[in-house]
């Protein structure tokens, strides 16, 4: 599959009474953009705010971060099966609003809980401090609907808003174009590729239940068998996030759209390696599911006749088992494997970092110790609310200090120890 990404660089966001992109500045009419969000009867109130890199702003609790994109050529639309109707995406041309994101936030603790600081020490740990963020702040109706229904309402509102914003980039001339092409099995044995080591990416997806779900073409991943897709489909929104609890190592939709392992494997494709496929596998809570899914990972890897694989994890603890099973079963077939994880080594860094281990996992990349304590100084402006800081994963009773500063673990920061290898943070 061949996909062209046309990047439209966004250098700022401002509110007005119309919608456009003017000289790289996104202009939005917040009143108009919020209308469709409020049509959902579960959403009591919603409004937009702007957060610019370097500003003294704290956004929390964060649900998702989404990069606006629009499909300008080729089948399907962005977020197929979720916002658009089901159609295979990943070919043709897509415009990307680079340098910005739609961030969903608001007081819905339990399924929204990350922190994004736009300046200060916390900003160093989240990639989203570097983006111009259009923040959709929502409050839910106290209507007795289930937590699952609220989560869905908040998730869909963010995705739909990003699609509406992305539409503004449809007719624009991109600042840069990048082309990605995935080979078929036959093409992967072409003269140019056949002598290079066959490498696949195994992407593990959170599927532990509410607050921990991921969707592929609209399908809840915990109800799927391990499967394959073209890496370009991911760039068109085939995978979306439904989770943000312990926000440091959950993949937002932004991470999926900009998957760094896929980007870095493409850079080497045809040079030092042959990037032959992408396998997606879930992280269910039942042992039978773990055994089955990892069996299928190894089986599909066998079908692809792989020499090597990179496995990325999402989350920690329970999914450490899936990670180690995947690694062991790949290595047992002689497939050289590198895994990407993060660590929970305790605040003092002295405890075992993973809940499972095996000698086969001899090549590990780490996104850092999520238990590391951090103090986030007070910000002039809070988008969302600080009411839940003591309760979120990584916080503790007294995390929020009287002066508005926060003493917590790195765990609270959205994307801080991402296990796709999105960041430079590591540990030894």
């Amino acid at each position: 599959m061949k996909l062209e990404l046309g990047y439209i660089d966004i250098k700022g966001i401002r509110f007005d009474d119309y919608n456009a992109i003017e000289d790289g500045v996104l202009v939005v009419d917040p009143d108009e953009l919020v209308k469709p969000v409020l049509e959902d009867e579960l959403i009591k109130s919603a409004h937009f705010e702007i957060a610019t890199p370097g500003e003294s702003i704290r956004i929390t609790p964060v649900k998702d971060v989404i990069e606006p994109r629009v499909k300008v050529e080729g089948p399907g639309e962005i977020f197929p099966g979720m916002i658009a109707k089901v159609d295979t995406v990943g070919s043709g041309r897509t415009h990307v609003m680079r340098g910005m994101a739609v961030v969903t936030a608001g007081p819905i603790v339990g399924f929204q809980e990350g922190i994004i600081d736009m300046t200060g020490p916390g900003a160093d740990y989240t990639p989203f401090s570097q983006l111009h963020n259009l923040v959709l702040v929502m409050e839910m109706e106290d209507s007795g609907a289930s937590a699952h229904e609220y989560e869905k309402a908040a998730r869909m509102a963010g995705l739909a808003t990003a699609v509406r914003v992305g539409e503004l980039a449809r007719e624009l001339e991109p600042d840069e174009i990048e082309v990605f092409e995935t080979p078929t099995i036959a093409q992967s044995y072409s003269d140019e590729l056949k002598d290079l080591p066959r490498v696949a990416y195994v992407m593990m997806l959170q599927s532990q239940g509410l607050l921990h779900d991921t969707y592929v073409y609209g399908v809840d991943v915990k109800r799927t068998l391990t499967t394959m897709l073209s890496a370009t489909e991911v760039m068109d929104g085939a995978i979306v996030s439904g989770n943000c609890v312990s926000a440091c190592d959950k993949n937002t939709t932004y991470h999926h759209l900009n998957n760094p392992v896929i980007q870095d494997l493409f850079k080497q494709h045809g040079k030092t390696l042959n990037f032959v496929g992408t396998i997606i596998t879930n992280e269910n809570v039942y042992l039978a599911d773990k055994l089955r899914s990892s069996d299928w990972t190894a089986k599909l890897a066998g079908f692809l006749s792989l020499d090597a694989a990179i496995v990325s994890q999402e989350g920690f603890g329970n999914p450490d088992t899936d990670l180690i099973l995947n690694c062991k079963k790949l290595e047992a077939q002689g497939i050289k494997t590198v895994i990407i994880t993060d660590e929970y080594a305790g605040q003092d860094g002295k405890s075992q970092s993973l809940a499972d281990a095996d000698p086969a996992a001899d090549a590990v990349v780490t996104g850092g110790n999520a238990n590391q304590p951090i103090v986030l100084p007070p910000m002039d402006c809070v988008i969302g609310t600080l009411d839940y800081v003591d309760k979120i994963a990584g916080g503790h009773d007294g995390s929020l200090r009287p002066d508005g500063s926060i003493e917590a673990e790195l765990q609270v920061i959205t994307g801080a120890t991402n296990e796709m290898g999105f960041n430079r943070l590591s540990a030894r």
Partner: protein
Amino acid sequence: MSKFRVVHYINQFFAQIGGEEKADIPPEKREGAVGPGLAFNKAFGDEAEVVSTIVCGDSWFNENLEEAKNTILDMIREEKPDIFIAGPAFNAGRYGVACGSITEAVKTELGIPAVTGMYIENPGADMFREKVYIIETKNSAADMRKAAPKMAKLALKLAKGEEVGASAEDDYIPNGIRKNFFEKKRGSQRAVDMLLAKINGKPYTTEYPMPDFDRVDPQPAIKDLSKVTIALVTSGGIVPKGNPDHIESSSATKFGEYDITGVDDLTADGYETAHGGYDPVYANEDADRVVPVDVMREFEREGVIGKLHNKFYSTTGNGTAVASSKKFAEEIAKRLIADEVDAVLLTST
């Protein structure tokens, strides 16, 4: 500013007294830098200076461990140094053990910033890596030119009270304390680089060597359940509604003890989960799903078990350090033994 005063420890070989045949010489102190001390003086530049060098034979040190330590500590104390360095010992085993021993003694007994250096396979490395900073060197003295500046850099950091970086940043042998730092490349790029090295049979270093787990052997099975008192202990975070002990949703620092005298069933009105790592909806609907008080009461009435203990213990396993879990377990076990509990049903999520 005056220079930091440095005392340097070396063996008979590096003092150019002799090899194995001179390994039995007792400690002696010389003024200024000797042998590798010159490389250190160069590395310290204007900031520090080797004021005195202590030389001791490797055999003498290891055969007279306590006396050697005490004698050498006295010699060091007299110099009132700001920094102590030992070696580097490269791959010399007894020299490595001597460097590790004396560096640890200086650190703990004199409280002076102390650094040594050696090859990772030197037996001294395993013995002392968690106790003192050991700069990782190659296996021969040819590496002195590179090792001395690394040791000097870390020693200066310690002397100035600056924060020490991760082992990969400050070149010391991993000391069992995981420390965050920013790499030059993002993780995905490092993964691709590592994969290419692994494919091509080239050396690479894993960023996290697999840990050894602390396995606990199960107790022998209970022959007659009808006579025993069983307690419920969980890492599933079940707490009385409102979480009175404020147990954290992740990375717990405490556990709770909750009385269930007269409680037949953990209802949604009375109990909930504090755990942030799983879908809480079903545990909140019926906490017996995690802490099965209802079923245990049935067993109690039917005489299947002797008695359900009147307290249950709870914490959240989510992201909680093994060291914390161990601490909780030790305390919980003590209380269970005091209450004459015979067996525990341990539930997770």
